[in-house]
């Protein structure tokens, strides 16, 4: 050691790097293979989404929200619809709320199944684990296609409900999916949960202690992985979530492994909620949309009274919030998206410091980001 002087090395990971899940760059300062500092660099996918929305009528923004978190267009739609409904005082019929929750929980299962798969990709188990998640995701996308006509850019929600009711073939296919899901959870967990390499690569890595997690404003599985049982479906219930029974799984240490376990457990909780929704769906009252808003002309001409509203939903990645200010015209005066993927990156530098370079991609994978939402 004595003859060699140690130099710090600057390395750019990204923007074109398979582990960054899109065009995202990390400026890493290394001492040997150990991370001394890490700075995330944003903006490669920035398109000023918020200004586009302020130049559009309220309903024109609905399909844009699909492009925020393009894995979970249903929950992005939900957050935006909820904010506009609060602003304009629009009621949602019971059946529409059930359909919305059903889509949201299906979305959570597909997101977590693929997020775990992608993270294990980053560990080097190239695509084998991911294919298990992708297989279930395809079935859920079949359901989305039946309901909305699109697999990923669903554009399914409208102010006051959803664009159309579930087609007759939806529920039989849904029941078939539900029958297979417990076996999928078991198989997926058996494959990954106790795998020696995965445990070694993820436990004790990227710890976000419980005491600092709240200060960093992280939400979703990252916050719950640090042991804080905070879930907007419980803290500020929207739609029918106040009526559904579910548990909030939490981690204990706040490392990559805990965040992964939280995602495994949340898929089972979503399954539990889907069972309750399925059971009650035939008895729901009201149509798929508030009759006063059923005509698309009403959606187009919507002029919420002057005021402001902030609505948030528990998207699979965390708290997805929409802040709207209306001046009484057909376009929002201010439209802001509180994107969970973006804000969950705040402690990335702190979480990576002291770990090996190879752990950085695993920590990033455990946060579960999607660049469409980070850069907006």
């Amino acid at each position, binding site marked *: 050691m004595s003859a060699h002087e140690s130099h710090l090395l600057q390395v750019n990971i990204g923007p074109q790097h398979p582990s960054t899940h899109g065009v995202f760059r990390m400026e890493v300062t290394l001492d040997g293979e150990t991370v001394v500092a890490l700075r995330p660099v944003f*903006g490669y996918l920035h398109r000023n989404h*918020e*200004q586009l929305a302020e130049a559009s009528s309220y309903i024109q923004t609905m399909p844009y929200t699909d492009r925020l978190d393009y894995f979970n267009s249903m929950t992005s739609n939900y957050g935006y619809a909820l904010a506009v409904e609060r602003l304009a005082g629009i009621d949602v019929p019971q059946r529409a709320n059930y359909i919305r929750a059903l889509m949201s929980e299906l979305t959570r299962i597909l997101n977590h199944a693929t997020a775990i798969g992608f993270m294990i990709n980053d560990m080097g188990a190239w695509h084998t684990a991911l294919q298990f998640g992708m297989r279930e995701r395809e079935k859920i996308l079949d359901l989305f296609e039946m309901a909305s006509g699109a697999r990923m850019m669903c554009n399914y929600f409208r102010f006051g409900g959803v664009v159309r009711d579930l087609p007759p073939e939806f529920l039989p296919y849904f029941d078939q999916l539900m029958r297979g899901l417990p076996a999928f959870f078991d198989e997926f967990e058996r494959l990954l949960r106790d795998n020696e390499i995965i445990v070694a690569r993820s436990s004790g890595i990227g710890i976000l202690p419980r005491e600092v997690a*709240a*200060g*960093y*404003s*992280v939400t979703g599985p990252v916050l719950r992985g640090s042991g804080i049982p905070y879930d907007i479906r419980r803290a500020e219930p929207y739609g029918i979530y106040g009526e559904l029974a579910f548990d909030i799984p939490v981690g204990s240490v706040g490392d990559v492994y805990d965040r992964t376990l939280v995602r495994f457990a949340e898929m089972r909780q979503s399954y539990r909620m889907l069972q309750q929704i399925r059971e009650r769906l035939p008895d729901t009252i009201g149509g798929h949309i508030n009759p006063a808003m059923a005509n698309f002309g009403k959606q187009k001409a919507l002029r919420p009274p002057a005021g402001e509203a902030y609505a948030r939903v528990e998207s699979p990645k965390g708290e997805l919030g929409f802040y709207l200010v209306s001046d009484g015209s057909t376009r929002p005066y*201010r439209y802001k998206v509180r994107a969970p993927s973006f804000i969950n990156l705040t*402690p990335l530098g702190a979480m990576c410091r002291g770990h090996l370079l190879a752990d950085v991609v695993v920590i990033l994978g455990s946060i579960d980001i999607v660049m469409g939402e980070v850069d907006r």
Partner: protein
Amino acid sequence: MSDQPGERLIAASPAAWRDATRLEAHGDHLPAVARVVRDQLGYDMLTNLTAVDDLARGEIEVIYHVVSLAGGAPLAFRARTPRDAARLPSLVACWPGAELQEREAYDLFGVVFDGHPDLRRIYLWDDFIGHPMRRDFPRQGDKYIAGAGEE
């Protein structure tokens, strides 16, 4: 804000976001108000920070949405600053989660947050001129539109 911001804040705690009292803090008192909100009222998470360009009043309003992880009603408070010299104290020391969000408000609205550890543009490149979320930013014909100023 008076010398005892805490008492006025407690009286102003709203029942829900929708009815959030328009609680405004003078820019100079913002760090003190934030500490009262965090330590005395128990709002341990700054969930959302954003700005609104109030062109009519010539001011930029910065809104802070805070929640308590233990439960209870969320709170929104806000501060105003003149558009032509937009400047507010940073709250990163109180809530580290403000770091990226203040950078975003700086980049898109041009609000300078004094005391921010690393206040740089976040989405736009460093030599970009102007702040595109301001209401009077030209929506077309500026020098960044393809074709303008190119050979």
